Every structure is written in C-alpha cells, then in structure tokens.
C-alpha cells in the first residue's frame, strides 16, 4: 500500500513541471504560434528561480522571478516572429540554444550550491489522515496551484469569449483580421503566457524536484512538453493526462532500477522517451484527429497589411 502511494505521489511530482510547460505551450499553439524554445525558457526559468531564491532566501520570490524570466525569453521570440516576421521554427530552435548557453553562463557560480526544497504544505488534520493524507494532502504549493490552472486554461479555451477569439486567430488569422481582431496583440499574449508557464516549470525543477542548479538540468523535458501538446491533440485535459502518463513511466523505471532488474539502467531511462514516441506515432496515424484539432495556422506568420 505504502509503495503504491509512493508511486502515485512521485508520479504527480514528476508530472508537475511537464503540466506547466505543456499547458503554456498549448495556449501558445492555439493562437497559431509554434514556440520551440520551451526547453530554453525552462532552463532560464530554472537558473533565475534558483539564483533569486538563494540571494533573497525567498522561494516565492524565486518562483515569481522565474515566471518573469520566462516571459522575457518568450518576448524575444514574440518580437522576432511577430514584429520582425522571422521564421517560427528557426527562431524557436535558436531560443532553445540561447537558453542552454545563457543559463549555463549565469548558473556557473551556482552549480552545486544547496537550497532548501519547496516545502510540502502541511494541512492540519488532513495531511495526517492514513493513506488519503499522503496521497492527496502532502504536496508543495506548485502542485496545488496547478489544479486551478488546468481548469482555468480548459475554461478559457472552450468557454470564454476571449478564448474563442484566440482559437479563431489560430485557425485563420486573415479572417480574424478582416473581422477586426488584433491578431498580433493576441499572439503576443499567448506567447507570453507560454513563457511564464515554462519559466515556472523550470523553477519547479531547480527549487522542488532536485533542489539545486545543474547545467542542462531540464534534460529534454521542454521537448517532451512540446510532444505532449500534440499527444493531447491541443486539448488541455488530455495534455495533463499525457504528462501524468509520462511522469508515471519515468517513476516506474526508477522503481524498476531500484528493484534491481537485470536490465541495463540506460535502457530503463530510455523508456519514457520511447513511450512518448510510440504514443505520438499512434496518435498521428489518424490524421483526422490532428487536422480537426491542430490550429490551422500553426507556425505560419501573418502579415496584417497583406
């Protein structure tokens, strides 16, 4: 029983940063913007959160700073692709490369420094309940903030008028422009939301999951988040489900290594990534789900004057 609880809680733990990053990218892509810089934004968020956390001694300030750093990174992308009309794929890749280098540079002096981990909330009465307590009421604040965020994004995209406008812009920016919607402004906001979420996801790695700064510590999680958006066919709840599945496989392979199976650990560490690829291939086998849910203008620039 206890090991089951441990598996589930560590799955949630592993999935949280993916949920943040993937939800942010879902919103960005729904507006028609393909930002491949998630990995870079996460790394800069991670190093910023860590540095501010150490300097100020406040993890809250660290998280806020990480979100701001993420927004700053995403603004680089937005200015280049929206105002200067550069290619989105190339710019996103460049942003990731920039993020890797920049975070390594800034984080050089912080490598290996200890920092207190983001504390688990202790809810008197609830946390002490047997089984239910550790299962539901023993996480840090970021996990709990995640839940309203999921539902807020879901509500925004499917129910709100602003979300409808944004989806319309992602579908056909030229038609939206002819009706009179500010395509570029909305796309700026969507990219910035993605940046803030990616920054928080990065900070969650350096302040909660492995409370320290290690160069390149995201280890491809930004790319996984991008894949999860497709995995979830641009639907927030499915994206979250995908993040939990990926987190689950990650945890399982850790436990499997712990049990000492005679499989090389490198092979086991590979499993979550193989699982992602397999699932993506299975989803893409049905072009209808992709065509109906993928924003039609994804990755394409829009010139309002044309």
């Amino acid at each position, binding site marked *: 029983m206890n090991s089951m609880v441990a598996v589930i809680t560590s799955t949630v733990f592993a999935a949280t940063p993916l949920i943040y990053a993937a939800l942010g990218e879902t919103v960005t892509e729904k507006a028609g913007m393909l930002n491949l810089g998630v990995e870079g934004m996460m790394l800069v968020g991670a190093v910023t959160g860590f540095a501010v956390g150490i300097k100020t001694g406040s993890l809250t300030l660290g998280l806020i700073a990480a979100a701001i750093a993420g927004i700053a990174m995403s603004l680089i992308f937005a200015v280049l692709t929206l105002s200067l009309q550069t290619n989105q794929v190339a710019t996103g890749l460049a942003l990731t490369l920039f993020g890797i280098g920049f975070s390594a540079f800034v984080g050089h002096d912080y490598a290996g420094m200890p920092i207190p981990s983001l504390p688990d909330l202790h809810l008197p009465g609830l946390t002490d309940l047997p089984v239910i307590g550790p299962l539901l009421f023993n996480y840090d604040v970021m996990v709990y903030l995640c839940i309203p965020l999921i539902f807020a994004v879901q509500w925004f995209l499917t129910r709100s008028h602003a979300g409808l406008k944004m*989806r*319309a812009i992602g*579908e056909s920016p030229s038609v939206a422009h*002819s*009706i*009179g919607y500010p395509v570029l402004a909305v796309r700026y906001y969507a990219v910035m939301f993605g940046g803030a979420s990616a920054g928080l996801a990065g900070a969650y790695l350096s302040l909660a999951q492995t409370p320290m700064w290690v160069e390149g510590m995201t280890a491809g999680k930004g790319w996984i988040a991008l894949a999860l958006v497709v995995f979830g066919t641009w639907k927030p709840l499915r994206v979250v489900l995908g993040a939990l599945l990926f987190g689950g496989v990650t945890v399982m392979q850790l436990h499997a290594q712990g049990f000492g199976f005679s499989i090389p650990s490198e092979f086991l560490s590979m499993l979550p990534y193989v699982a992602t690829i397999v699932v993506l291939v299975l989803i893409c086998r049905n*072009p209808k789900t992709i065509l109906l*849910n993928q924003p039609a203008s994804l990755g394409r620039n829009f010139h309002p004057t044309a």
Partner: protein
Amino acid sequence: MTGVISPRLALTDISKRYPGVVANDGISLKVFPGEIHALLGENGAGKSTLMKIVYGVTKPDAGTILWENRYQNINSPAEARRLGIGMVFQHFSLFETLTVAENIALALDRRIKPVLLAEQIRDVSVRYGLPIDPRRLVHSMSVGERQRVEIVRCLLQTPKLLIMDEPTSVLTPQAVLTLFETLRRLSAEGCSILYISHKLDEIRALCDTATVLRGGRVSGRAIPAKESNQSLARMMIGADLPECRLMENTIGEVRIGIQRLSLRTEDPFGTTLKDINLAVHSGEIVGIAGVSGNGQKELLAALSGETIVAQPQSVLIDGHPAGRLNPAQRRHLGLSFVPEERLGRGAVPPMSLSYNALLTGSRRGMLRSGIVRKAIMRAFARNVIDLFKVKCNQEYSAASSLSGGNLQKYIVGRETLLQPRAIIVAQPTWGVDVGASMLIRQALIDLRNRGVAVLVISEELEELFMISDRIAVLAQGRLSQPVLLSDTSVEQIGQWMSGQFDTIESEREENELVPA
C-alpha cells in the same frame, strides 16, 4: 424633400486609383429603401472596389458617400456594421473548426450569451427560410449552408443595406431560387440590397434597378426587367455577347476512362469518391457540373496523378491503365491538365513564362541529355503568347505578373500546343473576363474538333451548356450518368446537383472500356 423618398445610400463621383489602374472613375449611384439594386460588370470593372469602399475596407480618393441623407466617412467594416451595412463575401470568412454559433458570435459587435444567441440564430433562420443548426461545425457544411451562415450573421445585425458579392456562384439553380425568395422578403421589409453579379438572367429575374460598370466607369443604368440579355451585355462589355457553337463531330475511341473509381479521403474536410464511371471519347467534350466541394478536388487529383489510386484499371488514359502512374507518366501517355489554381499548380508564380513552358513541355525537345535548350523553350513560349494573344512583357514576364485571364490563356495555350490526346480542364474561365473566356472555350472546342478528348469540370452551368457534347454531375462524391446536351435541361442538371440521380452501373461500362 417632402413627398419624395430619399435614398438610403447615395454615392457621388467616387474615384479610386491603384498604381497603374483606375479602379473607380467618378461613379455615382443611389439605392433606395427596399430596393434591390444590381451592380453589373465584368471581372475588373470595379465592382469589388466600389463595394469595399461602401463597406469601409478601402477609402476612396475622391467622392462623397451620403448615408440616410448625412455625409458619412466609413472608415472600417465595424463602422459600416454600426450604420447598418452588412456584406456577404464571395469567399466566405468563416472558421472551419468552429461551430455556427461561435462563428457568428465572433463577428457580432455586441456580446450575447451563447444560449440566447443560439435562439436568435434559430429565429432568424426560420423567419427567412434559411435553416441552419447553430451547434454544427462549419467544416461539415456544404457551400450553400455556409452561405446561409454568412447571411444569417448579417441579418442578426438587422441591416438596412445588405451587399451580396456574386452570391450565386456557389449555389445550385434550386438554391438560387430559395436565395431570391429570402432577398425578396428582406426587401419587402425595407432592407436595401446591393446585388453584385455578372449573370444577366439572374439580374433580370431579381433586381429592380441596375447600374452597369465597365472599366471603372458607369456605362449604363437600366431597369433590368425591361432589358434583354443582349442589351445588358452591350452595356457591360460594349459589344454583343460572343457565342461559340459546337458543330457535328465524329466521335472516336475512349481516351479517358474512369471505371469503378472509389477513393476514401483522409482529409476531414474532403469528399470520398464513390464508384465513379465515365468514358470520354476522342472528339467530344464532356462537362462535369456540380458545386465544388462535392469531390471535384479529389477527382481531379485522381485523374492528374497527384493521388495514386489502388487499381491501375480505375483510370485509363488512351487505353493504358494509369491508376498507379504519377503525373509525369500520365502526361507521357498524352494527357494534358489545366488545374484550378493557376498560381501554384498551373504555373510557378515567380518563374518566367518560358520556364513555365518547360515545366510540362520538357518532352517536346526542350531537353537534350538533361540540358535545357533555351532557344526551343523560348520559341515555344513565344508561340503560345502569339497564338493565344497573351498580354505580357514577352516570354520573360514572371507568371505572377500576369492577370488571371492572361495567365489562364497562357496555361491553356501551353497545354494545347503539347498536342495532347486527352485534356482535363478545371474551372477554365474562373475569374476570367468575357473576351478571354471565349478564346479559351474556343480553344477547347478546336481541340475537340481535332479529335482530342476533352473533360471540363466547371461550376459555371452556363459555360458547360455552351461547350459540352455530354454533361454529367458530380454530387456528394458520386457521378451521374452523362447525358447528351439535347436530352437535358438546366432544371434537370440543377436537380442532379443536389445528388438526386442514378449512377451508371459499373458492370456494363466495364465491358465497354477494358482494352481488348
């Protein structure tokens, strides 16, 4: 002004210049409450520019707009909508993956609760005989249904003036009648309608008054009911409507054969082809009518080779099974092909006309051991330009610099001079002016007279009735039995266009088509 009804909209001396063209030159017109006013003219006569000015999309260089007796600058579509001007565009401005209600909510200037909006949509659609379900996704709707959405969207704003830009180009003849009823009801309620079209019959049936444009100027005003097609045409093109006639012709062997062609589409917005059978013989023109979106795109791709079909026998070119051949191999069998999109599929936009000749004409001596023989290529291009009177800056002009009609003449000319055994042409005169249309149609007829098999897929019924020997209808992915033109009528074809027909039985056709 006592005793006299004042016009709802009065345009005075509207002018608009673009670099190199005068789109509108001192145009004046008046529209009264409840009047259905036709704006008649060829492509490029300045109709669209004028309507864009009224709808606030472009600003005039000179002239005044009087709206309900007040001088008015209309600076944006939103402002036009506030004044009570609604517009239904020729190319719809709908979001395919959203529902009807969501599409309408996006275009409304005020915010309405989704439940209330759905109710209002149902109310309006029932009142004007335009049934639509607000919850449906737009991509699953036919073109006619989409137009209803656009109209309902305008009507929800209770317009005083409704602009309809070529509304019937996408409708079956029956749907046109329904649309006319709706428009008449609107006009009876006092709504003015500006009806843009180049179809003379429709204007005579529907409109109270007409303003005719030619070359950016008003070339005539008329009461259409009192005019004939000929007199309206003279105002519109300055000459009598040219005609082309089909002479008796001997019909030879099957050059394009389609047998039991079924093709599932992977595209959720596409149409699945179901058991299509057709034989086009040497020396005849077969027209395929139908509203686009009924499988035209898929059928064309399957015939040109852009889509490979499973059974080689499904497509026969000059007797050879071609179902699994690619476009180049099919061209090698003597097939020529004029696609619907001129720029991008018919021609490479930034490349010169002579290089565009090389694209499909490479086998006509333009290549030697893989090296381009430029002299031959240029001579071929010059030949096309001369024979088809293409207006351009010699063979060096980029394809994208030609007007639609000129480029179409060039492409048809290029395909014709390749001396095909069979030719497939999609929408031959879409967006092409009357003069060029006639030249293109005559070119197709000449090919037929020389014994080429010609297959024309077009949305313009009038055109098909002008040039076809036999005519068939493609609706919902099924192809009707082809009928001799003398055995059918516009009404029957119109009815078939909504899918009510029997298809050819495959067995009988098969015996006829399989090469011995």
